[in-house]
């Protein structure tokens, strides 16, 4: 009887054991030695022969797959992450996974949004999309980990090994937005049990995804055009492009014409928000936090501002609160605040006071806040000149 436990054992070896050409590579003697110390499969001689199968596959692909198959990258393709990107981390060798391409990209774009996939349905669980066989080509079975989507460079993608229909891609993205949603076309995995091996498979998949997405993010940021603290001196096009490279699904309330708008009208994709329980009656807004390091964009993320008090007058609007997640000792000039009107596509600047010790703020605007208007805070932190978290 084939069990999920066996499926997990095989998955762990596929994902994190070095293939034979790495095992025998003279440059990786230390890494291989360290891996043998901690790997329960390699320690007993990798009983499933996983690495050998990988080696045979690699040899097969090299021999029989034509170069011209490396056509345009299109949504719906199932591609292998390039084998040479396999890497060591924490004494494990992360083998490049198969991914489903989720967006079409043109020649000018560097980043591609993907979902990790796995072939063995024994490890499918709620949150995975299992397309019917008539909507897949190239594979007998596959499931899409809609909870494990990330950004890669387009150059990270290797051979295209199969496809799913555009309907499957759309439904996968819907599942990402709403984890309780299961499209009619998908098969239904059974719920997880207490010590279900699929729980540990999730950990493994997240680690694998993280390994390759972090590598891509670093590389993408290296390619980002120089952005200094005086980010406000950049052209809008450059800034938009740079930000999109960091977060491809980032968007704006309206197409920005100025650098101020580029920051203040920015909308984060939902996956950028950490899941959290509502806390008390405090209202919150999410500020745009842009971190620069060595003159390049290091990070863009939403940061939670808790509003304790708001005072609306006919000629002014004032809010105060705190931003607990910020680094210490940020300077006053790091902050900007605006009233944002998406209908009129306009910004009205206010005065922002920051108490770095207590992490309290007061934002004051010299006019009233109208219906359909919202507040926007932006924080540009140069960690080379300032303070890292």
């Amino acid at each position, binding site marked *: 009887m084939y069990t999920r436990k066996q499926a997990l054992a095989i998955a762990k070896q596929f994902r994190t054991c070095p293939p034979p050409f790495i095992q025998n590579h003279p440059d990786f003697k230390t890494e291989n030695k360290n891996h043998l110390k901690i790997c329960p499969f390699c320690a007993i001689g990798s009983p499933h022969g996983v690495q050998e199968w990988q080696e045979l596959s690699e040899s097969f692909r090299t021999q029989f797959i034509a170069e011209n198959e490396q056509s345009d990258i299109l949504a719906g393709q199932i591609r292998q992450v390039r084998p040479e990107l396999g890497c060591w981390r924490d004494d494990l060798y992360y083998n490049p996974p*198969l991914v489903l391409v989720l967006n079409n990209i043109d020649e000018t774009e560097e980043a591609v949004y993907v979902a990790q996939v796995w072939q063995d349905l024994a490890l499918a669980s709620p949150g995975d999309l299992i397309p019917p066989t008539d909507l897949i080509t*190239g594979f007998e079975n596959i499931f899409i980990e809609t909870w494990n989507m990330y950004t890669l460079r387009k150059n990270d993608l290797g051979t295209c090994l199969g496809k799913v229909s555009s309907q499957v891609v759309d439904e996968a993205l819907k599942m990402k937005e709403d984890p309780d949603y299961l499209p009619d076309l998908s098969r239904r995995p*059974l719920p997880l049990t207490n010590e279900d091996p699929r729980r540990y498979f999730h950990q493994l998949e997240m680690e694998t995804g993280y390994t390759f997405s972090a590598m891509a993010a670093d590389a993408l940021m290296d390619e980002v055009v120089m952005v200094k603290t005086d980010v406000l001196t950049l052209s809008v096009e450059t800034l938009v492009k740079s930000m999109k490279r960091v977060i491809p699904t980032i968007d704006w309330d309206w197409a920005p014409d100025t650098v101020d708008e580029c920051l203040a009208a920015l909308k984060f994709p939902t996956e950028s928000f950490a899941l959290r329980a509502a806390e008390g009656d405090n209202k919150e807004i999410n500020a745009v936090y842009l971190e620069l390091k060595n003159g390049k964009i290091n990070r863009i993320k939403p940061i939670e501002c808790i509003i304790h008090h708001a005072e609306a007058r006919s000629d002014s609007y004032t809010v105060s609160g705190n931003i607990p997640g910020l680094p210490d000792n940020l300077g006053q000039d790091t902050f900007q605040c605006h009233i944002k009107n998406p209908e009129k596509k306009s910004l009205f600047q206010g005065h922002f006071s920051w108490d770095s010790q207590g992490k309290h703020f007061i934002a004051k605007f010299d006019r009233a806040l109208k219906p359909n208007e919202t507040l926007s805070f932006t924080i540009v932190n140069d960690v080379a000149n300032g303070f890292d978290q």
Partner: protein
Amino acid sequence: MGKDKLSPQAFEAWLKTDKNRNTLKIIAGKTYKKMELNRLNLPGVDIRLTTPDDIFQELMIFLLENEGVRNGLIVGGTETMKRLHGFLWHRLLDITRSAEANQDIYKDTWRLFYRHILDVMGKSDQFVKTKTSSRVILFGRTHESPRAVVMMEDLMDIGYPQDLPAYFQALNTKKNILRLAGYFWEQAAQKTQEPHIQLNVRDFMSWIGQYVNLSNRIDSYPETSDDEIPDNPLAKACQAHEDVMKKKHLTAWANNFYHLLKDIEKKVFYYYECKELKHKDVAELMDKKGNLSYRRDKIRDRLKAFLRPLDWVSPDHGNEQIDSADFKFFRDNLCNLLSTAIEGA
């Protein structure tokens, strides 16, 4: 794919290159070891009557004869491995049933029962049979594809009906087989909320095997489950071999987990889990003000994750109990390593 490049001749030539032959030999050797370890000597013939080279030959034939495997090779995924393991399993059964192995089907209870079930199901209008691409035979109430993905382990805790006999000779009648299959199917459909569930006949037998002795030497066994099973020299020899392998593996895994722990974690684990000290004592030994239970719990989680895919030290399916002696052996080995490192030899 460049189809012209992938003619059967080209594939065969590729398969027979020295490098690939060597890789296949390693796979065959490992598969053999795994079969040996798992005592895939059904029905009644020792795996040692075969050799790794037999498995290598079978592998070559399998790869050459099955075009589907080539797609698997492109992907290099788990499906190929599963198919291959399945193939080898059945192939080994064929070998063990060969004239040389002198097997008599009428002494092979499992095989006999399997054939009987297929025959009964085939003639019944209560069930439909479906044959999958990998030659697995499923039974269900309709030919409609089920939507739920069900593993046999999801169904192993279905209880045995009290109104059916739990010994083979009495169970092995047309009427009882149909009643049991009907009962099992209903329970499975209800448990998984899947009205079109289809069940593998072999899995059905695995489930029955939990309650009814379908052992290969059943002809010499007493028929009541309360009696002790008589000595079977072959089983004994295999058991001794498995025990040696098991201990070797458990010792290696204890060593692996030892190396996974950082120095401070080694101490936390050792004081809490090996010496079973209280929070206060651990904190004092570690020169910490607060208790270290959070850190201990994190290490426990890592240990669980480490052990979950491994044989003997975690359940194969569901919430079944594992043999605590195996876990104790692992834990004692780990504690010995920690003791040597922390307290000195």
